[in-house]
């Protein structure tokens, strides 16, 4: 008569964190990609891009696995929709990394023609990856949040982390604005396709911070703060 034991379903939180780990391995490749991009190393870009693509696919498999094993009959301490939102935001981050990798491999952007943007560009890349790392920390805290039912000092801690993400996002937005300004003013010396691709890349890299902030805020909505 193991009725009581059968009452406990398979928790989706561990797979959610596994998914985030896979997303992190995707985004962990981006710094190498940016380095190769700045060095105009087309071969390396190609290789890293393929690697990111593969990792993204793995993350997708985990994601589908979670979605398939999330029956309506599972009773969770948070809304199903919240869980699925978090999952799709994590997925969006992996997708964004893949997009960036694909676009970076499309055609060489002769950055040596506008050396002024190089520094800001690498700062932007670095900051965005950093913000993602913070968001990942928040997801790692999920275990402890469950332990204290989303309140108390643990919730305060997570709230602090989310606030930090928001602050960093604001800072990177400023960097992005400065970068865009230089890019537009010096853009004449670039061929049209390269200019356009540069804009897209800046936009997409900035999206990492934006998505990370959204993810943080989605977790923050679960907290019981007083």
């Amino acid at each position: 008569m193991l009725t009581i034991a059968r009452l406990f379903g398979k928790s989706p939180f561990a797979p959610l964190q596994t998914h985030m780990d896979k997303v992190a391995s995707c985004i962990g490749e981006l710094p190498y990609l940016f380095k190769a991009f700045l060095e105009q190393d087309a071969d390396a870009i190609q290789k890293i891009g393929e690697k990111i693509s593969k990792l993204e696919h793995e993350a997708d498999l985990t994601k589908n696995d979670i979605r398939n094993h999330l029956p309506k009959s599972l009773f969770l301490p948070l809304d199903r929709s919240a869980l699925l939102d978090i999952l799709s935001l994590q997925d969006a981050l992996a997708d964004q990394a893949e997009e960036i990798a694909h676009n970076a491999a499309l055609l060489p952007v002769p950055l040596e023609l506008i050396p002024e943007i190089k520094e800001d560009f690498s700062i932007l890349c670095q900051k965005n990856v950093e913000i993602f790392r913070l968001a990942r920390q928040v997801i790692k805290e999920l275990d402890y949040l469950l332990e204290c039912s989303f309140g108390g000092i643990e919730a305060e801690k997570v709230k602090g982390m989310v606030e930090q993400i928001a602050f960093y996002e604001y800072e990177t937005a400023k960097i992005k604005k400065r970068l865009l300004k230089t890019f537009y003013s010096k853009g004449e010396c670039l061929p049209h396709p390269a200019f356009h691709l540069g804009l897209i890349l800046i936009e997409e890299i900035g999206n990492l911070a934006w998505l990370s902030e959204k993810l943080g805020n989605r977790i923050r909505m679960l907290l019981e703060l007083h």
Partner: protein
Amino acid sequence: MGLALVLKALVLILGFYMAWNIGANDVANAMGTSVGSKALSLKKAVFVAAILEFSGAFFVGSSVSETIQKGIIDPAIFQADPMIFVLGMMGSLLATGILLQFASYFGLPISTTHAIVGAVLGFGAMIGGLHAIHWSEIGWIVSSWILSPVLSGIVAYLIFLLIQKKILFALNPVEATRRLAPFFVFMCFNVICLSLCYHGLAQADLDFPLSYAFSISCAISLAAALLSYTLIRNRPAASSLLESGFHPAQAVSLEKALHHMQRVHLSNRSDSHSTRISRILDEVRALSDDVKKEAPFQDSTTQYHSVEKTFVFLQILSACLVAFAHGANDVANAIGPVAAVLGILKTNEIAPHSAIPAWLLAVGGAGIVIGLATWGWRVIETIGSKITELTPTRGFAAEFGAAATILFASKLGLPISTTHALVGAVFGVGMARGLRALNLQTLKEIVVSWIVTIPLCAILSIAMFYLLKWILL
């Protein structure tokens, strides 16, 4: 007189088998979590459970047993031929035993209580006619089957809400646990003492009126709470006040101050004070940021571990409570029919006021203990390894809710399913956002098997009755 002796032996064996079955399968509900969280070793858990199951059965088991014995069907209907009643009760026991064996083989969530009530009901309605059944009593029992999981769920929900608001959401959870633990000890002892003192110690010729019983149990519980208070005090404390840096409480207070300042700032209409307010606001904001950086929010994980460690002791207490309540309620399933049969065989006529003899309750208790010792420990081990998710705080809330409900029902003489009460309590904790994932599918299975058990067992008991009649008479 040869037949009577055979019947006597047979019914005792059947009753003992039922008690064995209850001990083997259901005690795990009480002790599983404590073994799973390594609060108790398996040996200790079996030992503690044996003592509490036995005392629950012996001291508080009589009122539910009387319900099964003569509350469901009116024995007076069978005045003309008491042997029919004897065979009917034996048939019910046999049917329940068979069904339970079948259920444990196929792993069906069948409740012993539902089975025995269904069996007695079936035989009574078939042989004695519909008027032989106390329908109002049946109404009470059935509504208690619906209400008991709900009630235990509500109690568990409230207890866990209390743990949440006062401990988990506190800025210093460890200190809050120290403060609240004696209160929980008081509650546990009060529940158990009250059920013992109020019409409980009848076996020991002690029977107090309610007010007297209440004050006695309060006094004992207070003593226990004081003892637990001193014990907790003596446990080495994690330093709550830091030598340097700020406390999380200070950070939160500052944040509140900031919040209020902002309100003042937003609602300010006069220009003359506006600069002053903004200056103070900026200062408070800067201070709050600094304090937040130094406040050790990072310790939260170790704090929660320490809370769970303290709750291990409370959870042992609540597990004992469940074991006691389980003994009190479920011994009736085995002993009730036996008492009915033995009462008749003694005098060869139906005595409407025969009480449950104390030795029979002891036999039932012993049967449960033997079932636990020979087989139940395996089930405890299995359950313990499967429900590690019920950590001490959650386990305490769920077990307290279930045990309080079961004891309450036992006092009212209502046979309820302990498993269902516990399931309700676990859901109560889940409702308070305490558990990671609960399977609603299992709930559906439980309800279905609840509905199926009763007619199935009724039919089976009628069949057994005719079989026994054909063999013995």
